[in-house]
């Protein structure tokens, strides 16, 4: 555990560091917390904002009531969140089907030692396994294999999808707690 003096010294040193100074550095640091983007605001792109506005107008109808519009916005946002997760799921499967894997496999220590030994002794360097070659060439086997490969990721995305669906249903009930839907529109 750090002593009082060490803690004080760390704090003094930390004050000297003000983070990246260059434009590129600041831009890079601004994305430090970015992981997958699924929980970010849906209004982050202009196209989304436009789609969101259209959907809000369709749900809220002619109402100009701020509360009604805000509740309609919550429904539309959850609906677009759901769509985004579904697109991510399909994109992951398509990627696995096209490339055979999502991330290139990391070399194990044993593999690295073999690689270095082969290099030092002038032997042919073992070729990495081509993930694409291990994929079945015919459908539906290829798609099934792609789904199998991304199952853990699909399960994670499923949790986001579930939360977005719950959020939308709550928003719908809140919305109609305040106004009556017009079925004749």
């Amino acid at each position, binding site marked *: 555990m750090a002593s009082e003096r060490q803690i004080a010294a760390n704090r003094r040193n930390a004050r000297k560091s003000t983070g990246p100074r260059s434009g590129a550095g600041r831009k890079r640091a601004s994305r430090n917390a970015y992981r997958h983007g699924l929980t970010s605001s849906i209004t982050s792109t202009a196209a989304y904002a436009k789609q969101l506005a259209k959907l809000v107008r369709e749900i809220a109808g002619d109402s100009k009531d701020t509360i009604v519009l805000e509740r309609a916005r919550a429904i539309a946002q959850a609906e677009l969140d759901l769509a985004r997760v579904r697109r991510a799921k399909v994109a992951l499967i398509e990627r696995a089907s096209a490339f055979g894997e999502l991330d290139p496999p990391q070399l194990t220590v044993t593999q690295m030692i073999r690689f270095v030994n082969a290099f030092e002794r002038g032997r042919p360097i073992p070729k990495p396994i081509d993930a694409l070659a291990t994929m079945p060439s015919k459908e539906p086997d290829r798609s099934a294999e792609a789904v*199998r490969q991304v199952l853990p990721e699909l399960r994670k995305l499923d949790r986001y999808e579930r939360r977005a*669906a719950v959020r939308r249903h709550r928003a719908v009930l809140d919305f109609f707690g305040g106004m009556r839907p017009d079925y004749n529109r």
Partner: protein
Amino acid sequence: MRRTNELTLLPKLPLLITESADEFDALRDAFEQEIKPRGIIEQMYVHDICAIVWEILRLRRCKVVIINSAFRNALQSLLKPVLRQPGQYEYQVEGEAEALAQAWFTDQEAKKQVSEILAGFDLDESAIEAEAIRRSSSDLELLDRMLTSLESRRNKALGCVAEYRASLAQQLRESAERIIDRKGVLRLEDAASEHSTAA
């Protein structure tokens, strides 16, 4: 006309390249005929149900393919111990097991031979299937969890439509009562004003 407008507003469900858009449309039409959604909110719920059911069908297809694709390795690993003679190691029969497992899919003679070998140990083709399931059990378990989760979400989404309609019905009842009450108040007010003018 209205329906088309609502559907273009809702984000289109992305399909895999190998999936048929016509089949998805047919599924959506079937659900729409059954649920008869009215308004954008009910359209959203139906869209949701269709997306979930489509994913369930996709995963079920995968489940079958995963088991089928594990058949060759399953047969090979099943044949190795049964082909091995006393005093032999498994690696010594590896080539024979591999060739027989390969031929099992295309050659009727090989299929018959495998059946006879298995029968010698009171086994049949279901032993191959069991081994294929055992070998892909971790994937199948994950798939089953996802299927259970999707089925529960589908049921909840169906429940959401019912809950939404019930809350709407409740609201319509309350609105109707308010209107009736207001009319009653007006009638009483009218009666009171008639009395005062008569007096």
